[in-house]
Structures are given as C-alpha cells and as structure tokens.
C-alpha cells in the first residue's frame, strides 16, 4: 500500500514535470522560433539586401513608414518580395508566419491574394480564379494601367509581390526588436520583447473584400464584419440607440500617422452590456488580437478582457448587410488599451467591397510600453 502510493506519487510527479517542461518549452518556442526564423531569413540575404532590411530598433521614421496605400505611392522601408529569390522569399514568409497565428497568417495571405485579384482586374484581364465576383463595374481596361495625373512610373501598383519586410533592431530572445511586413492594405508592426509579442499598430484592409480563388469564396476581413454585425444585432433598441452614432465617418480617425492618440470614446459602453454581449464584443476584438502568435494573443486577450467594462462600441452606417457580404458601416471599439476601427471606403462604388481597418494600443504602439518598463 505504502509502496504503491509512493510509486503513484512519483509517477504523478514525473508527469507534472514533463507537462511543465513541455509548457515551458512551448512558451519559449514562440519567441525563439521567431528569432531563429529571422536569423535564417537574414542568412539567405546578401550584404546589400541585409543592409536594406535592417534598421535601428528606435528608428522612429521607419517605425512609422507604413500605410494603407499602394507601395508605389508610399515607399516602404525594407525589401519587397519581388526582389527576392525563391529561397529568400520562402524564408521571409516563414518568418512572418512564425510570428502569427495560423488564422492570422491565413488572413495576411488572403489580403495579399486580394491585391493580386485587384492587380488582375486593374490590368483588364479576368482575375485569376475569379468566376465573376469582380468588383462592381466589371472592370473595363483603363488603358496603360497608370494612375492619372502622372503617378509613379512603375506599372506595378498591386499584387502579392509588392509586400515589404524589414527588421528593426537585432532579432533577440531578450532584447526588444521589431518585424514589419506590409504593402497595400497591410501593415504588420510586430514588436518582440522577450516573451511578449505586440501587434500594435497594425493595419489590415481589403479590396475587393470578397473574391473567389480556386472556386472558394474568400473574404479576408469577413469575420471582422460578421462578428460585429452579430453584436449589433444582439443589442436591444436602447443599447442600439447609444451605440449608433448620428454622423457619418468617411475614413479611419486614427489611421497611419496618428500614433499614440486617444480620442474621446463614444457609443455604448460594455458595462451596459450583458454577459453574452460582452463575450460577443471580445469575439470581435479577437479578430485582430488573434492575428499574432497564440501565446502573445492569449496574453493580449487576457488584458483586453480585464478592460472589457471600460470598452466602448460605436457604429455608423447601415445596420444590415447583404447575405454573404461585408457590412458597409463604420465601427469602432475603444478601451483603455485598445482602438479598433473598421472603415469602409466609398472608393470603388460599393463600400462593402473596400475596407480599411486599424488595430492600436495607444498606450503601447510599437511596444513602447513594455520597452519603457
């Protein structure tokens, strides 16, 4: 009996140790995996390329060099995928995917794919794999694929080749550093600070917001639209009255260049929501918070969950959406450590087909918060 229980205790102890070490190993892997992917990517580059990719960690100019605009208009730092050989390209995408969750990386891939569709439409060719879900208007050729009034000389404005990667600081498991990846409708600013991973500020966007690829309907920012509409529909009339703003919003309020600003929150405060509605609000938030790798996302969601009663939800525009399509309304979620904006664009005629979104932590843009600590 005594021997048996001692054996059992030892077995349980061993199991606990194994579990703990596995957990510890997994917790470590997030940052160390990203660091080794970064070092691997850098090792594929030649000296000149490496020089173009690397910036000082505190390079404020490069930090803020991101935009929703095509790269031909707003040149990003770093090097684009189009200037890489297949091995470098694959190493770059492995690095990006190592810092993101599976869901997050898939979203990034879809945004890039969408830009490829836009490029095909722009050239007047039938978009690849597009079986008729073109943006409204059918996409007649616009001649030389040149922006009017003398845009940049390059014919290439869109497409998945035109995404840039840059690294600020030295990839490290202890010291903070940053990975940037972005182009048209995408700006990932990922700060790695020890075990922590910070995704703010990050911009996602989509045009077309709905397309088909290999027979599959794709909406890169579909969940962002659907979960928010579901939350709005779950509100009662009185709550809706508070949540729905009386004025129009044509664009992001805190878009590129508006770092660190906290505007006066408006709309419906989550303390006036019931438990189910608050869970739905967190579900909307997680569409952005979960883009980063799982352990960083879990930490971030825990922080946002603790703030939830101080979090506001505001809506402006139509309160319905055509089945299977995105909303054409603007919405904003704002809390002590959070600003999310979802801003449909009238450009293109159908606001449900073109959207810019912003994900921020005004107290911790570019990981300034934990770095300062």
């Amino acid at each position, binding site marked *: 009996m005594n021997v048996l229980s001692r054996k059992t205790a030892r077995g349980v102890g061993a199991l606990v140790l194994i579990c703990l070490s596995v957990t510890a190993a997994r917790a470590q892997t997030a940052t160390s995996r990203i660091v080794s992917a970064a070092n691997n990517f850098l090792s594929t580059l030649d000296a000149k390329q490496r020089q173009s990719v690397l910036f000082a960690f505190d390079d404020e100019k490069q930090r803020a060099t991101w935009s929703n605009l*095509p790269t031909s208009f707003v040149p990003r730092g770093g090097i684009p995928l189009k200037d890489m050989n297949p091995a470098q390209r694959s190493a770059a995408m492995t690095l990006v995917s190592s810092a993101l969750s599976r869901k997050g990386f898939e979203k990034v891939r879809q945004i890039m794919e969408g830009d490829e569709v*836009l490029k095909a439409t722009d050239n007047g060719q039938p978009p690849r794999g597009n079986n008729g879900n073109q943006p409204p*208007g059918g996409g*007649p050729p*616009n001649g030389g694929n040149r922006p009017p*009034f*003398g845009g940049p000389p390059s014919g290439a404005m869109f497409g998945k080749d035109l995404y840039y990667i840059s690294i600020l600081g030295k990839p490290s498991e202890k010291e903070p550093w940053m990975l940037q990846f972005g182009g048209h409708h995408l700006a990932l600013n990922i700060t790695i600070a020890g075990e922590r991973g910070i995704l703010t500020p990050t911009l996602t966007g989509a045009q077309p917001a709905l397309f088909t690829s290999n027979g599959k309907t794709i909406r890169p920012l579909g969940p962002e639209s659907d979960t928010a509409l579901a939350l709005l529909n779950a509100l009662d009339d009185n709550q809706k009255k508070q949540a729905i703003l009386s*004025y129009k919003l044509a664009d992001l309020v805190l878009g590129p260049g508006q770092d660190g600003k906290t505007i006066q929150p408006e709309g419906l405060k989550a303390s006036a929501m019931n438990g189910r509605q608050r869970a739905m609000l967190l579900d909307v938030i997680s569409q952005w918070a979960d883009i980063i790798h799982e352990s960083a996302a879990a930490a971030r969601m825990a922080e946002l969950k603790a703030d939830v009663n101080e979090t506001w939800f505001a809506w402006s525009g139509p309160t319905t959406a055509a089945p299977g399509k995105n909303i054409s309304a603007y919405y904003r979620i704002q809390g002590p450590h959070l600003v999310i904006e979802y801003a449909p664009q009238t450009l*293109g*005629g159908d606001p449900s087909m073109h959207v810019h979104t912003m994900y921020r932590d005004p107290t911790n843009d570019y990981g300034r918060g934990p770095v300062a600590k």
Partner: protein
Amino acid sequence: MKTKLVATAAILLMLGAGVLAHRLDEYLQAIILSVEKDHVQASMRLIPGVAVASNVLASIDTNGDGIISEAEQRAYAERVLRDLSITVDGKSASPTLVSQKFPAIEEIKAGLGEIQIEFTVELAHGGPERRIVLENHHRNEISVYLMNCLVPRDPDIRIVAQNRNENQSFYQLGYAQAGDSSLPGFWNAWSSFRRRTGGGGFASIFRLGMRHIAEGTDHLLFLLALLLPAPLLALGSRWAGFAGARQSLLKILKVVTAFTIGHSITLALAALGLVRVPSRPIEVLIALSILVSAVHALRPLFPGREALIAAFFGLIHGLAFAATLGELGLGRWERVAGILAFNLGIETMQLIVVAAIMPPLVLISRTRANPFLRIGGALFAGFASLGWFAERLLGIHTSADAAVDSVAHHGVWIAGGLFLLSVVCWLNSRNLPRFWMNSKQRGFLLAAAHRGPRTE
C-alpha cells in the same frame, strides 16, 4: 482641354473598376482637438482626392507656377483657418496658425498628399461648464469631414458631450473644467459635486430641498399655522375682524421672509460645521414651535410680533435642514454650493405652498367663515404637534405623522377645495343681489337701505 477630358474619362473608368486604392472624389478634412486649461490645440489634416486635386491645387498654387512656395503654403493655411468659425462659450474666437506642412505637388496631384495644419485657440477664463463650437466651411461642396477630440491630459478637464451634424462639418464640444485655482472655491465645489451626483448636482440638491419641505410637513405646518391669523387684527386677547388686504399680504410676506432668514442662518452655520446641535432636541423644539403658533392662531399670544417668532423658530428649523444636507456627505466648500441649492429648493416649495394658501386665507378672513378655518387649522396643527411631542420626547408612537402626511398627500386637492370654499364664502358674504340687479334696481335698493333707520 482635351487632356482634361481624357483624364476625367480615365478617372471615371477607374472609379467604375474600383481599382484605385486611395481617395478619389472627396476632399477629406480631419480635425482632432486637444483641450488644455487655457487653450485648445488642434491638428488638421487635409487630403484632396485625385479627382478634386487639381481643383484644390488651384487654390494653393495661386500663381500656377507648379511650385507651392512658402508664401502660398501660409496663405492657404490661413485661408483654411478663416473658413473655420469657432465660438467658445458662445463668444466668437479666432484660431492662431502654429504651423503648416505641405506634401510635394506630385503627391497632391496623385490624390495622396496630406496637408497638415496645426493651430490653437486661446481660452479666456470661463465657468466650470464650457462649450466650444467649430464649424468647417472650407470647400463644403467637395469635402468630407472628421471631427474629434482627444481625451484631455489634464485630469481637471472632462469631456461631457460631443455633437455633430451628419457630415461632421459642425462640431460642438461640451466639457467640464474643475480645479482652476484662479476660480473661487465655489465653482470647484459646484463641479465637484456635479461629478459626485452624476452631472445634475445643483439641480438634484435643489430638488432635494423642495422635496424636503414638501415631505417634511412639520416645517410647513409651523408656517401655515403662523399664517392662519395673519389677515386678522388682534383685539385684546381675541382675534377680531379683517385687517385689510394690503395689511394681510404685507404680514404674510414678513412672516415668510423672517422664517427664511432664520432657517438660512442656521442651515449655513450647521452645514459648514460651525454649529453642532444634536437632532433630538431640535425635533422636539420644532414640535413646540408648531404648538406655539397653533395656540397663537386660537388666541393672540404675540400679536404684531409674528415675524420675530417666525425668525426665531426659523433658526431651529434651519438646524434640521442642515442634518438632511449633512447626510449627503459633501465636502466643506461643496456644502456652500449645496446650501445655496438646497435653500433655493426649500424657498421655492415654500413660496408655491404660500401662494396656493394665501388667496383662500385672505378671502375667508373677510367672511364669517373665518373662525372655522382658523380654529380648525389651529386645532389640527395643535394636535399634530402634541403627537410629535409624544413621539419625539417620550418615544410614544402616535398617528401624527400619518395624519399630517395624508393631509399633505392630498395637499393639491385640499388647497383647491379651500380655494373654492373661500370663493363661495366670500360671494355669500357680499351683497349678492348686486350681481343680478341692474343699476336702477340697485340704486333703489341702496336708497331703501339708506332710508332704513327712519322707520315711519
């Protein structure tokens, strides 16, 4: 001309195709305000879409040389500011240009240029509640607007309301400002208890004052009992006839004012913590005050000195008011604002009641029905005060509270009924025939009355 047409056609085609990823046919103007203690900092971004870029550019590069000179930059920024109309607390205010930053002309032409203008608006000293209105009239026909304000860095400034029209060209910002040391403590107190009471501080304490006097029936009963014999003349140890309308009104006014002065003094002293009296003896003294005025209504105890008595007992009633105010737990300076609000509430309710009771009181005093009202009222007040005495002094439960409450509860009906009754009594007491006789008949009657004594 031809190239312009081609370009426009190209834009329209692209619009149809939905290809361009940037702003097209709108001029986006975004303003973010930041409210500080003595000024507003504003940053403005102006982004002309590609289809309106040449239009906008024409008003920037005014000499058309393809270069945006320093002078042109400044002139355009100043023009934009002139197109804003700003008021602070209803007074017109003008913005001061701090800086302007222009993109390259090519960027503007491509619909990507962002013009940045920083400006400030000076804020004169104002009250604790302030309002800034900003209207943007710049290029209304092609523009879309965004108007916002930052969460104030100064913890003493709190945004209360933001209102906009649908396209945000009109923006109204309401905010509360506290803790300005150059303002008297009173204002701080006011906004501080506004915060405490969720915005409606003054109003809510005012209402509390009104409710206190309406529900605290002992105060009203004292006053009304004291007013019962007000329109009468004292003749020795008895109440004699009507003293005249003017005389009555003057007396009522004196009594009410004296009561107000009395209770205001002690309310202020006690609320500020300068006087501290236990509440039990005060409650007993209040019951005594009612008894005294009830007896006085039966037999004149202090004819002509009612105002003095009202002021004296007012001092005691004020101490009771202070206890109610004390329950709110306001700070010392907050109390000053609280006292004012509370007292105004009491005064308002008091005047409403007196205004309702006075006309029937004066009317009935001119009739033979007067003793019934006076004695009835005095007895009611007397018994109520005896009930309260027993309750407050001896701890015996009586139905005084319930009885008075039920009367007070039907106060409006009782006042209305009293008014009707007084009108009826008054009409009855007059030479009624007057109303349905013509002048000739009346003259005859009067002549007959005149002849009356001469019995022949």
